[in-house]
């Protein structure tokens, strides 16, 4: 059933009794053309584009829990493409463009809210780095503006911009097309759309082994039996190393906790997304009224989906220095995800040492905003057994050659 106002009104008449499942709950087949391991946004989007753009018929997404339950359902929902380095910028811009048409494409309101993203500059070096990034964005055809302190004040009056602030605001970059999207809806929208194109989405199906014949992958062992496949893609952010180990190769990834939180809901007070890499704060206000906040990653490696409270304290103190009026609002809920971090803070979307096995990993803190673009190029990579131009740089072997991409430098940590 297509979603529209008409179908909603029609169903309202019958008290919503006739809505079908948004995606089926099929029993796994014995064999698929392509198996995607991981039913998060990246995996579901990959399956969708495999079916839609490459006409692959038999595709399964295997999810050990419930779809969208990993980082897709735990992030701070920011979408933007104002990355410094060309390779990252082009990939994220593709992603943002897909986001802009995604609700229509998926026939699912992913609630894209292009309220703009401000990246604050607090020191002279921040100013240099920010302008460098704005200039790179403009030349790459990505919308970007430099705002001086006065313009920041005009755009977002509740940010503290006086000179006495511990972290004075010297200016900011603004990407107006950036903003937020409803994270769950992205997963569900892709799942529904993929399902409609015949993709089997199999939940509660945990991969316990990856089978190989020589240097070629042949299938997976799961808690629901053995499933063979011609090709397999891994999209298991947080657990990439675990899956890679099953397949017998190593990845230059470490898993860390990343914490996020929301305040109690309040009436609209913040009409954009504000990020400050220097003090590790980012904040937006959801449609529901909650302030959605993120911090920097916890220092240690972990798969426990929780971090340490002092990281939150540090972040809230910086938040209040930037937004003193938030002091009497209340922290309502906090949680943690597991992020894959790579040495150059850029993803790996690549072939692997194992034939017909493909890896999509290492998104660090930037995974959500990349979902459509990542799925688009990963589907291409799997279908064509070679990367798309947009992910050609994000190979696994760059860590041997030293040809890193490096978003660490001037762009800082991506969120």
């Amino acid at each position, binding site marked *: 059933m297509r979603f529209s106002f008409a179908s909603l009104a029609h169903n309202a008449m019958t008290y919503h009794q006739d809505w079908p499942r948004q995606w089926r709950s099929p029993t796994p087949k014995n064999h698929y053309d392509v198996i995607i391991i991981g039913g998060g946004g990246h995996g579901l989007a990959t399956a969708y584009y495999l079916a839609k753009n490459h006409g692959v018929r038999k595709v399964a997404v295997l999810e050990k829990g419930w779809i969208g339950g990993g980082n897709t359902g735990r992030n701070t929902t920011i979408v933007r493409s104002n990355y410094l380095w060309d390779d990252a910028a082009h990939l994220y811009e593709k992603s943002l463009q897909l986001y802009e048409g995604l609700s229509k494409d998926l026939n699912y309101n992913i609630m894209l809210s292009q309220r703009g993203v401000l990246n604050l500059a607090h020191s002279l070096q921040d100013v240099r780095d920010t302008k460098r990034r704005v200039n790179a964005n403009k030349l790459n055809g990505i919308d970007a503006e430099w705002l001086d302190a006065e313009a920041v004040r005009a755009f977002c009056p509740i940010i503290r911009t006086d000179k006495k602030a511990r972290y004075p605001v010297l200016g900011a970059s603004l990407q107006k097309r950036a903003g937020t999207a409803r994270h769950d809806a992205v997963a569900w929208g892709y799942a529904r759309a993929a399902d409609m194109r015949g993709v089997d989405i199999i939940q509660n199906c945990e991969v316990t082994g990856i089978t190989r014949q020589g240097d070629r992958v042949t299938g997976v062992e799961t808690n629901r039996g053995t499933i063979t496949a011609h090709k397999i893609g891994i999209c298991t952010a947080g657990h990439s*190393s675990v899956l890679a*180990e099953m397949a017998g190769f*190593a990845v*230059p990834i*470490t*898993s860390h906790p990343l914490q996020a939180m929301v305040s109690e809901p309040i009436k609209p007070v913040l009409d954009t997304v504000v990020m400050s890499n220097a003090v590790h704060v980012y904040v937006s206000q959801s449609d529901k009224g909650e302030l959605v906040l993120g911090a920097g990653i916890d*220092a240690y490696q972990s798969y426990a989906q*929780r971090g340490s409270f002092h990281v939150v304290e540090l972040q809230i103190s910086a938040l209040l220095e930037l937004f003193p009026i938030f002091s009497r609002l209340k922290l309502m809920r906090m949680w943690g995800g597991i992020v894959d971090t790579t040495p150059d803070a850029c993803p790996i979307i690549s072939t692997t040492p194992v034939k017909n096995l493909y890896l999509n990993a290492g998104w660090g803190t930037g995974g959500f905003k990349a979902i459509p673009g990542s799925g688009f190029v990963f589907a291409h990579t799997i279908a064509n057994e070679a990367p798309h131009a947009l992910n050609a740089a994000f190979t696994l072997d760059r860590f*041997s050659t030293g040809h890193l991409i490096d978003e660490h430098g001037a762009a800082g940590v991506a969120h």
Partner: protein
Amino acid sequence: MLKIKCPYCGDRDETEFSYGGEAHIERPDSPSEVSDEAWGAYLFGRPNKKGLMRERWFHVHGCRRWFNLLRDTSNHTIIGSYTALEKPSIAELKKESRKGGAK
């Protein structure tokens, strides 16, 4: 906020330490003789184990010693710690931690 036992100073809060990642990564004796792949693996290859992991911590705001910790990355249980130049077995560390008792 992990509670980390510095082998010298005893239990302290995580904030006194900085993290050094995987422990016991061997730096090649003659780097110029290793292949690009092997050097890349030394620089970036990390087991990233889910479960018990030996990791480096630096008591940066305390005695300024690097030491190693055996910790479960799946649930943050800490088994024990030992100085930078040792490598006790997991069984030894578990025994040691039991001896430590409740306190």
